């Protein structure tokens, strides 16, 4: 639910049955208003039936496979970049050993280059955290759609999806520490503060 609270789900079967019951009771002469109402009820019945069919169609392969597969692909991205980063670091450490055998400007240039590579390799941490946020969002979407399917009582078998950490966390907000509540990962460009701004902020406390 948008406001985060839990409300009883609409019972599609009951709505449909009510519409059919009303339609069945309407016979004989109809006024213009009654005819209009009949039209509205028929449209409502069709909408409910179509919604049920569409929700049922979301199950099985689409949710049972696609979202977990997407999560696995993203996990694989993190794993591959970690492997590649560690290989780069292996090479850098080899270059640093080589640097020890060199003198003067060449050694200094090599050292500077290696430092810049170390700095650049921290991308793996940032991208890993960003991808982790995307995976958590996917799992939340998956859980919510499964909950809607369950509410509408579709007959199709559904994959059992573990509750995502985000959902669990939402139910236990009171138990979270300040450190956990403020742990949101990297901010989007422009949303966070720069190192210079942080330095000024910290200085303002002195």
């Amino acid at each position, binding site marked *: 639910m948008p406001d985060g609270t839990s409300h009883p789900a609409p019972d599609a079967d009951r709505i449909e049955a009510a519409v059919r019951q009303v339609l069945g009771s309407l016979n004989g002469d109809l006024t213009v208003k009654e005819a209009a109402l009949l039209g509205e009820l028929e449209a409502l019945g069709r909408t409910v039936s179509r919604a049920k069919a569409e929700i049922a169609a979301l199950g099985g392969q689409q949710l049972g496979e696609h979202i977990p597969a997407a999560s696995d692909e993203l996990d694989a991205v993190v794993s591959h970049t*970690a492997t590649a*980063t*560690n290989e780069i*670091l292996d090479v*850098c*450490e080899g270059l*640093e050993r080589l640097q020890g055998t060199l003198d003067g400007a060449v050694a200094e240039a090599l*050292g500077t280059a290696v*430092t810049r590579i*170390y*700095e650049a*390799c*921290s*991308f*793996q*941490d*940032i991208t*890993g*955290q960003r991808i982790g946020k995307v995976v958590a969002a996917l799992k939340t979407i998956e859980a919510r759609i499964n909950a809607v399917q369950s509410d509408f009582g579709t007959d199709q078998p559904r994959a059992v999806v573990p509750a995502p950490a985000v959902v669990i966390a939402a139910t236990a907000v009171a138990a979270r*520490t*300040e*450190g*956990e509540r*403020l*742990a*949101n*990962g*990297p*901010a989007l460009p422009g*949303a*966070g*503060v*720069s*190192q210079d701004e*942080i330095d000024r*902020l*910290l200085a303002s*406390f002195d």
Partner: protein
Amino acid sequence: MDKTMNVLIVDDYKTMLRIIRNLLKQLDFNNVDEASDGAEALSKLRGGNFGLVISDWNMAPMTGLDLLKEVRADQRLARTPFIMITAESKTENVIAAKAAGVSNYIVKPFNAETLREKIEKVLVHA
């Protein structure tokens, strides 16, 4: 500045631990130990003698901020310089860290010069 001191670096990304360790080595800090979360770090801090802690924020089961609070609440560890290196770059994070007693705060991605500058600053004031 005593560069022979023991430094504890805390991060749940092994690659990040390796990068920070190598950058510290370039700054001539060679006595570096590692922990992968706040709880492990606290155990090492209580069992050892560290002159500087460099910690990430976003870790489980204990975050860097919670580690910082534990360190400041521990009479023996309370004065240990503590630098947060994190991707958490919201103002509220910086304020919370400062309120908890952080010595300095570095936002990821960072460069070697920023690391050197902040370490020198906190150790001079330690």
